[in-house]
């Protein structure tokens, strides 16, 4: 078992994006909220285009439009003007001000600037310099900023908090459906299931229906407990709530596959004091049935998994459950925690796993060549699969060269069934083609 972190100065085919886009995704899951990026023109335009591609949805991202003057004299004027223009024209409930490499290097005191603004809108500063961390840490910082600014103790409730991390609308719908079956009320941070997968009906509402409300965010301080589905993206908020408001916390694992979903349901069950109901046991049985049925099509195949840290480690455990071999488990975000998670899977399952953290796809390609795998699971940029003539199942972010990934869940028992189909069909199609 090896761990490699890219030691090159040049990054070739990156495995991560920068912090601001992660923060933007978190804010887009809040009802009537608009991210206001404190940066130059591209800092909003490029992430918008990335969201458009992946989610096939319009997104509203505002910008303070920093130019040469701001680079010299500071961006305070632009930020104040921007908040006012956005509030008066759009009437959002929340404006999250997201910093960039530009505004952080200029050194604008955005917390101080925002404190002086008196408008009927919640203003939350989010520090996400692009030269630190990745989109994953940006998301984590954003959710933590939301709860640290807005959560308020007002008396205990019978709800639980769930931070979902960088998952998709389909995943959150599956999560909500599981919770509904268990009759569990939850504050979901943040809920993009409607805001980034809105129905086409006219007239279009001013803001998409759905999304986490500010009241729900405020109420997170009063819950029975908090669960982070992705500890790297949402774990910070859950930890904050535990430290500050004594809300018991559970970090991960992402409920991909049988054992991880069992663990989530067990955790929820314990927090609320109710058993896992029959319907979920039936879904579980359907997943196991699907896994057994495809066994000869997938068993012993060697898999390279590339995704954000928690999805990658969750997927590693699931391909093990399918009788496959997780030969390489890789993530673009640097994380020792990720290495520990995958090491634990390796020692529990007996697989030899090569672990790559903070890697780019060029590094992953070298590892794939050396290990000789049968299936690559990665985002749209997984051209490695073509080059190496191996099967390719698209997962993660972004996926835009095939349609529908964002709508289908990969979590829970139903997500497991989708993944069984995706993995087996990728292998079958590859076999047919070659």
């Amino acid at each position, binding site marked *: 078992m090896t761990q490699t972190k890219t030691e090159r100065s040049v990054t070739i085919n990156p495995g991560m994006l920068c912090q601001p886009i992660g923060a933007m995704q978190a804010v887009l899951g809040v009802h009537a909220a608009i991210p206001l990026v404190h940066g130059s023109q591209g*800092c909003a335009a490029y992430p918008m*285009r990335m969201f458009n591609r992946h989610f096939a949805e*319009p997104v509203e991202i505002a910008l303070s439009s920093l130019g*040469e003057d701001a680079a010299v004299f500071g961006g305070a004027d632009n930020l104040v003007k921007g908040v006012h223009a*956005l509030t008066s024209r759009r009437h959002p409930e929340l404006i999250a001000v997201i910093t960039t490499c*530009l505004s952080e290097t200029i050194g604008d005191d955005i917390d101080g600037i925002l404190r002086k603004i008196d408008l009927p809108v919640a203003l939350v500063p989010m520090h996400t310099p692009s030269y630190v961390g990745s989109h994953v840490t940006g998301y984590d910082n954003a959710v933590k900023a939301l709860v640290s600014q807005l959560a308020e103790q007002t008396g205990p409730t019978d709800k639980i908090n769930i931070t979902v991390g960088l998952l998709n609308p389909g995943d959150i719908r599956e999560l909500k459906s599981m919770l509904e079956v268990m009759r569990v009320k939850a504050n979901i941070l943040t809920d993009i299931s409607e805001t980034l997968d809105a129905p*086409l009906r006219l007239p279009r509402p001013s803001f998409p229906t759905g999304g986490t409300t500010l009241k729900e965010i405020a109420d997170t301080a009063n819950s029975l407990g908090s669960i982070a589905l992705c500890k790297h993206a949402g774990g910070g908020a859950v930890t904050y709530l535990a430290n500050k408001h004594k809300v018991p916390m559970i970090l991960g694992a992402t409920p991909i596959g049988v054992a991880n979903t069992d663990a989530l349901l067990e955790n929820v069950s314990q927090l609320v004091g109710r058993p896992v109901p029959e319907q979920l046991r039936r879904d579980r049985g359907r997943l196991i049935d699907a896994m057994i049925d495809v066994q000869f099509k997938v068993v012993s195949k060697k898999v390279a998994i590339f995704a954000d840290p928690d999805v990658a480690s969750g997927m590693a455990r699931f391909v093990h459950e399918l009788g496959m071999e997780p030969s390489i488990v890789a993530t673009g975000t640097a994380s020792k925690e990720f290495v520990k998670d995958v090491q634990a899977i390796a020692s529990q399952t007996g697989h030899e796993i090569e672990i790559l953290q903070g890697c780019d796809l060029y590094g992953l390609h070298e590892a794939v060549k050396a290990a000789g795998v049968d299936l690559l699971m990665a985002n749209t940029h997984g*051209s490695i699969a073509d080059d190496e003539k191996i099967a390719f199942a698209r997962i993660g972010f972004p996926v835009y060269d095939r349609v529908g990934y964002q709508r289908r869940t990969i979590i829970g028992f139903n997500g497991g069934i989708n993944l069984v189909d995706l993995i087996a069909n990728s292998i079958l199609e590859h076999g047919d083609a070659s």
Partner: protein
Amino acid sequence: MPLTLLECDIPIPEREKHTYIKKSGECIIPMCNVQTTPGDLTERGCTFAGCMGVVGGPVKDVIHLVHGPIGCAYYTWGGGRRQNLSDNPEFHRKYCFSTNMQEANIIFGGEQKLHKAILEAYERFPDVNGVFVYATCVIGLIGDDINNVCKQASKEIGVPVIPFSCEGFRGVSQSLGHHIANDVIFERIIGTKEPDEVTPYDINIIGEYNIQGDLWVIAPLFEAMGLRILCTFTGNSSIDDLAMAHRAKLNVMHCQRSTPYICQLMEEKYELPYMPVSLFGVDQTSKALRDVASFFGLEEQAEMVIESEVAKILPQMEYYKEKLKGKRVFIYQGAPRAWHWIKLMDELGMQVIGAATTFGHTDDYEKIVERIGDGALVIDNPNSLELKEILVKYKPDLFISGLKEKFLAHKHGVPFVNGHAYENGPYAAYSGFVNFARDMDMTINHPAWKLIEGRT
């Protein structure tokens, strides 16, 4: 009617200067090419996007190394499978290079990292013929001397290493990025090599980026007339093509916003004249071929090409004219396509009810205002609230814009064609015109629009 203020703009009245309803006899040009109002939900991109994404990026045989934190490189990776096509897809747009600047590099400077990154990238891809280095925002702030690093690295690896200081915060839009790329390519590349042979019929096609293969339907037309294309700036071009471009006899300029700079510079230094053309639609394409032909005395050849090309598409065009006649269209493009396409829509019998550009200058708006019909809206740098208001109030039959606006149109029940990256292009010249008309017809007459609840 004069300048006008849309309802959504009441809190930001400065937008009135950018918004004009055309009236014949007036001489009003909306304000343009100025800073965006902060917080107005602009659709604009940055100087880096204009420099790397538009002009530099299509060069097919160099490493495009983005010097800065990771995001800017990632966002320009690939550019979609079908954009900026080249005949080198095994390398070009498949690989994305970045110095991935970290906090320590910001504090202590990124010159060393950049230097190492250039050498490492070249070591892994030794078949390339150059390295383009693009500085993003933070590089300008910390003051890395990228010129010096590139000079040193070039000496070491033996191929040109070209620095572009295209920090995103410079300028007001993509437009300055085009200009920077023009200047740098002119100063450092054009004229640095000589072609093996020159002919009296050599041209360059300037401002053509081979979106979905536009170039590959344009080039055969000129070649059939007996011309040779020495260089395309910059679709499917190699760095050597650019280096030898000064030996052409004429620069044929298509995109007239991103490339007048280099045309003027080449005219001054090499006495190489340039000719602006439109290569969209039958009439404009035919005019372009005739204009270029008359420069070279190839009038007869041009007429033969035009006759045979027009004959090929005539039956299809008649069909689409019938289907598209009278449809009302709103066009929002980077800049020149907004006015190139007003004439194209005229040919189809469609009505342009509004035109907008992201980064147009005065000369772009002069052409738009001259060409567009009375009562049409002309708006500069429209933001998403303005676009929404236009879609809802004007109810166009078709909106032509880019990916960022596509899903906004869909969510308001308005048929949409991507005019930046195209749907099923190419859209240029004769055969491309058929594709364009077909795509417009397909979306306008798509059965699913009628199924939308509440659509009136």
